[in-house]
């Protein structure tokens, strides 16, 4: 078990170091986040639609598509210099490789979300101080769902010629259920509704988390077959 954990951490640390050195995915994701948040804000008619009405959708469109940049890069990094073969030659269990890559993606997406939230507050003039724990909870749950399935699909498409185009096409249908749930919960959080009103959606998100994580871990090995 210690070897498993060590391998997972080694992969997360390696991915974080590579991203820290290059910053390509993070900067792209942040530019994208700023663009989406600002365009959606200025595109509405302020006399007809309040900022609060579109805020939940804007937040989750930003999170989802900014995360896609990182997910796209996840296994392209392993394709560079055939690094994936270097991983496969080691005694590290295949599931540890997946969990490590997923951990790296979660770290990346969490960082993008962390930087996007203040921008979101700034643009949409929402107060999150009182409901921050709830927002963090729903963000963590939805992020886990789409990062797990995104990591799996990233591994699946990396060997195709148009990996960067294929990933969004395959991933977006899987994102609809968790992101719809996240938008619903976020809307209620921003409207100041009680937590009890959101329990149904939160349970649904928890079910997606369990299903997506378990299936992704189990199916990862199949993506490595020739």
């Amino acid at each position, binding site marked *: 078990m210690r*070897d498993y954990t060590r391998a997972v951490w*080694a992969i997360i640390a*390696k991915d974080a170091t*590579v991203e820290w050195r*290059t910053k390509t995915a993070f900067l792209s994701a942040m530019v994208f986040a700023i663009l989406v948040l600002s365009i959606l804000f200025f595109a509405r008619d302020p006399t007809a639609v309040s900022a609060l009405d579109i805020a939940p959708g804007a937040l989750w469109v930003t999170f989802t598509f900014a995360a896609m940049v990182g997910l796209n890069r996840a296994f392209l990094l392993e394709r560079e*210099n055939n690094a994936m*073969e*270097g991983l496969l030659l080691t*005694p590290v269990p295949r599931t540890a490789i997946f969990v490590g890559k997923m951990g790296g993606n979660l770290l990346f997406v969490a960082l993008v979300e962390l930087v996007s939230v203040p921008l979101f507050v700034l643009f949409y003039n929402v107060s999150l101080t009182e409901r921050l724990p709830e927002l963090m909870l729903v963000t963590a749950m939805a992020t886990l769902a789409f990062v797990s399935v995104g990591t799996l699909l990233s591994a699946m498409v990396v060997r195709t010629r148009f990996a960067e185009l294929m990933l969004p096409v395959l991933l977006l249908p899987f994102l609809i259920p968790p992101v719809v749930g996240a938008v619903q919960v976020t809307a209620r959080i921003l409207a100041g509704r009680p937590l009890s009103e959101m329990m149904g959606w939160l349970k649904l998100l928890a079910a997606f988390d369990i299903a997506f994580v378990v299936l992704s871990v189990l199916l990862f090995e199949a993506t490595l077959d020739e």
Partner: protein
Amino acid sequence: MKPLLDAHGVSRRFGYRKIFNDISLSLGRGEVLALVGPNGAGKTTLLRVLAGLLKPTTGTVERHGTVGLVAHHSMGYDALTARENLAFAARLWGISDGDRIDHLLEQIGLAKWGEMRSANFSRGMTQRLAIARALIHDPDILLLDEPLNSLDEPGTQVVLDVIEELAGRDRALAVVTHQFERMASVATSVGYLVGGTLVGPEPVDGRAAEAVSQKYRSLLASA
């Protein structure tokens, strides 16, 4: 003595395209097998099958020990330094001995460039790093795919020394090469992969490189 690597009736296809057929070979301790063959003969594919990266279409491959592979690509990360690349590989192999990395960097002549990102390496330096990476866990079986590519004369000598040293420590090695004359001093056997079949392996003790080249040319002519 039980061989470290044993392949029986191995064949490999990609779709309908046959790469090689019914190959059997074994690698014992201290053995250095040189694999020669023309471009596209399937030498790299055979090495990948022996390493376990590809499944054979038919046949079996048994490995009795850890495997290291030096392939055409470095299997490293450009954004990491040479030392970080080796440290990452070491962690995956469960090796915590930091001296091992220093020793390998010294052995392959990269000690001065250990802190340089591998993106800035020349092809020869990248090749040296790939060799160090394959050696990080001191493998029982080392498979090398054209390891002398891109290497200058001192680099070539370093690789030949590494091969000799590993064979002296009872490791088993298979080396794909187009430069048998450079490998003649360290190879103990030679196999000719021509037309999808393996001729040999046969011992090369005391045989001049020229004799191997002659046989190789005649096999190519009759293929």
